[in-house]
Structure formats: structure tokens, C-alpha cells
């Protein structure tokens, strides 16, 4: 369970969001500029809140007294433009988080192969990131975030970088992948169609506030 209750003064408005996300996907819908990315960055620890707390599975990630830096939070994140490392190939990208955890090389390679196969991109492992299509990049980004077995998963508009034709197909694939992910997952988007794909839990964000939740 991911419990958020934070406030931060932004340039255009006061961000004050409260949200509880249990295991599984929670879609957070909102127009652009509503604070969606800020929400994820706060959870990931890339940005500090002015007040409030973020608790994940009972562990305090941030509150008045504590601030756990992002590299110790074990929160996986898929960025809007995927943020794949251009100087590393696909396998090295996916292995990156395991390297951070000092996983031994052979074990690392095995885990990478497993996740690539699971996401059906095993044949891309030696490719350079620049040669991949949008849909392929998204899967690499997902693999990279999943392989570290994060305690929570954050997806920042994972489909918006794709062209409309690819989007629908990838959305379905994404859903089947996320069905097997058993941690609190926040899927942030401005696209209503995404909301339809994940009807289980939806929240609406506007001007930095969570205005409606539904399950």
C-alpha cells in the first residue's frame, strides 16, 4: 500500500495531493499541467515535498523528519520519454538497476534474460537504444524498472510518446504485463482511453489536487 499526503508550492499552484494506492494499477488521470509528473517525482524522491508524508508498505519514504533519497527507495519508474541510457545497449540498460544492487554478473545476465523474454524482447538485447522503435523502447524501459523487483512502480504517461497506431496495441500489451505486477502501480496519463483499460482504480488530478477516486 502506497499512502501519499503531501503538499508542495509550485510555480503555478499549490500542490496538495492525498492518495492511497493498494496493490495493482491505479490510474491517475489529469490534463497537462495538473501536477501529474510532480506527483510521481515526489514519490520517487526526485523532488522534496514542503510538508506531508509518503509511506510505502509501512516504510516512511518522506515525512517531516525523514527523507529517503531516490536511490534507496526501491521505487521503479518509467519516464515519459523512457530515459534509456543511449551509451548502453538494451541488456546493459536493463541490467543497470541490478548493477546498482551489486548483483553478480552471471546472476545479473540471467535475470536480464528472463525479463527480456517475459516481455518478448529477448532478441533486442544487443541492440543500441537509438535503433529501437517507440514500442520497443517502452518495453525496455519497463523491463529495466521491473527487473529490480521494486516495491512500487510509477509510469509517467508511458504511452504518450507513441504514435496513435502503436498506442492501442501497446496499451493492451502493457495491461497484460501489469496484470502480473503485484505492487502499487501508479499509471499517470491525460488520455481517457488509458483509464478505460485499467478500470480497477482511477483517480483524477487537477491543479495539484486529487479530486476524485473511484474503484
Amino acid at each position, binding site marked *: 500500500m502506497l499512502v501519499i499526503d503531501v503538499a508542495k508550492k509550485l510555480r503555478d499552484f499549490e500542490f496538495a495531493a492525498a492518495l492511497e494506492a493498494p496493490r495493482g494499477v491505479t490510474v491517475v488521470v489529469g490534463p497537462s499541467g495538473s501536477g501529474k509528473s510532480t506527483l510521481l*517525482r515526489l514519490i*520517487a*524522491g*526526485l523532488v522534496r515535498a514542503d510538508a506531508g508524508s509518503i509511506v510505502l508498505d509501512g516504510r516512511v519514504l518522506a515525512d517531516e523528519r525523514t527523507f529517503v*533519497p*531516490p*536511490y*534507496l*527507495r*526501491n*521505487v*521503479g*519508474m518509467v*519516464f515519459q*520519454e523512457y*530515459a*534509456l*541510457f*543511449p*551509451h548502453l545497449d538494451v541488456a546493459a540498460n536493463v541490467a*543497470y*538497476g541490478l*548493477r*546498482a*544492487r551489486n548483483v553478480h554478473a552471471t546472476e545479473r545476465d540471467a535475470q536480464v534474460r528472463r525479463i527480456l523474454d517475459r516481455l518478448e524482447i529477448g532478441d533486442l538485447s544487443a541492440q543500441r537504444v537509438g535503433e529501437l522503435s517507440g514500442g520497443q523502447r517502452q518495453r525496455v524501459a519497463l523491463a*529495466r*524498472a521491473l527487473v*529490480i523487483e521494486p516495491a512500487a512502480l510509477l509510469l509517467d504517461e508511458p504511452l504518450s510518446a507513441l504514435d496513435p497506431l502503436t498506442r492501442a496495441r501497446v496499451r493492451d500489451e502493457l495491461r497484460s504485463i501489469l496484470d502480473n505486477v503485484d505492487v502499487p502501480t501508479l499509471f499517470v496519463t491525460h488520455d481517457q482511453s488509458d483509464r478505460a483499460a485499467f478500470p480497477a482504480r482511477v483517480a483524477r488530478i487537477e491543479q495539484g489536487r486529487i479530486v476524485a477516486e473511484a474503484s
Partner: protein
Amino acid sequence: MIRAATIVASLLLLAFIAVPLAGLFVHLSPAQIAAGLASPVARTALRISLVTTLISLALTLALGTPLAYVLARGDFRGRSVVDAVVDLPIVVPPAVAGLALLLVFGRFGLLGPPLRAIGIELSFTTAAVVMAQIFVASPFYVRAARSGFLAVDRDLEAASATLGMGPLRTFAFVTVPLAAPALLGGAVLCWARALGEFGATIMFAGNLEGISQTLPLAIYLNLENGDISIAIAISVLMIVVSLATILVVRRYERA
């Protein structure tokens, strides 16, 4: 017609740069150049230049890299002032730089007495040569490094953090490899500028064979050694070294 004018203009400038450089090579025979380079004056100056410029480069990399990173990522009051200060030595005449160093670190300079109290006297030392070089040359590296870091997408560093790499490891595994061409280019420029430094060196460090006489000083002071063969020989050496470094850097940048 415009094209003709363009070609003429380009050739003029190119020739202006190339001909004097080539002229140095034809003035002496290869045997004379070798003899000039083998002279004790040249060998000593070469040693001083190599040692000092490498130390200057090392210190610049060590201190300039964090500074460049702070300037690229930091968002603090007065950052533009710091930027301007770092750029100043590029514009300030080297003699002014030398005088400034003398007035601060010289014996009766601002910091002279306190330094002397702890047993440090800097003027007329090889350390002073290094200081003069760092002063005039480090901005070249810092500027290039700053550009390089600015060009690294911050989301990449953020992704690295979320994947579990701490700030230092993120810097080493993501930022530096991606900024590497800029860092390398900046380092080479810095080293080249340090190698050619004259005005600040002679003002602050003085001129003494084996202590502070670098290659440029040796050229200038040996211009009237009967013939000028030693000066030309050293000049030829410096041109060859510069050309070699440019070629190496270009090759790396393309990779």
C-alpha cells in the same frame, strides 16, 4: 561570384594561418631541428613544460569537474556571476593574470606573509608555473565541461537514481560517459593553453632553466643564441605536438 568571393576569403585566412607555421619547418633541416631539440636548453624546457602542464591538467580536472557540474545543474543566486568569473581568465591578458597572481601570492602580496608564516614561498618556483597555467587554462576546461554536462538529459540522471545508483555512481556511469567528448575536448584545449602560457608565467614564476623555463619561455629567450635554431626547433616541436593532439581529439570525438 559570391562563391568565388567566399573561396578567396577562406583561402586567405587559411593561408595566413598555414604559411607561417609551414615556414618554420622549411627554415631548418631535419638534422638541425633534431640537434636543436637535443640541446640541454630544449630538453630541460620540455621536461618542465611536460611536468607542469600535466600537473595543471590533473588539478584542473579534479577541481574543475565538480565546479562545471555545479554550474550546469545548480540553481543558485549569483550563478551568472560565478559563470562570468570563471570565464574571465580567457579574456584577461596573460600579463595581467601574472601581475594579479604576484600581487596576491607574491612575497608581500595579500597572502604572501601568511603563506610565509607556514613556510610557503611561491614566487620563482615550479609551483608558481603550475599556478599560472591553471589560472589561464582551467576556464577552457570548465566551460567545455559545463556545456557537456548541460547537454546530458537530467531525466537520465533521475532514472539512474530511481534504479538505485547514488549520486557519485550516477555521475560516473551516466553523466561522465555522455559528456565525455566535451570533457575530453575541454581537457585538450586546457592542456594546450597551459603549454603555450607565457605572460603570466614569466611575471609570476620568473624564468630559470630547470625551474620555471617552459618551452615558450625557452623559445623567446633563445631567439638570439647566435642563430635562432633552438627557438625554431622548439617551435617546430610544439606545432607537431599540437597537431598530434588535435588529430587525436578529432578522432575520439567522431567515435
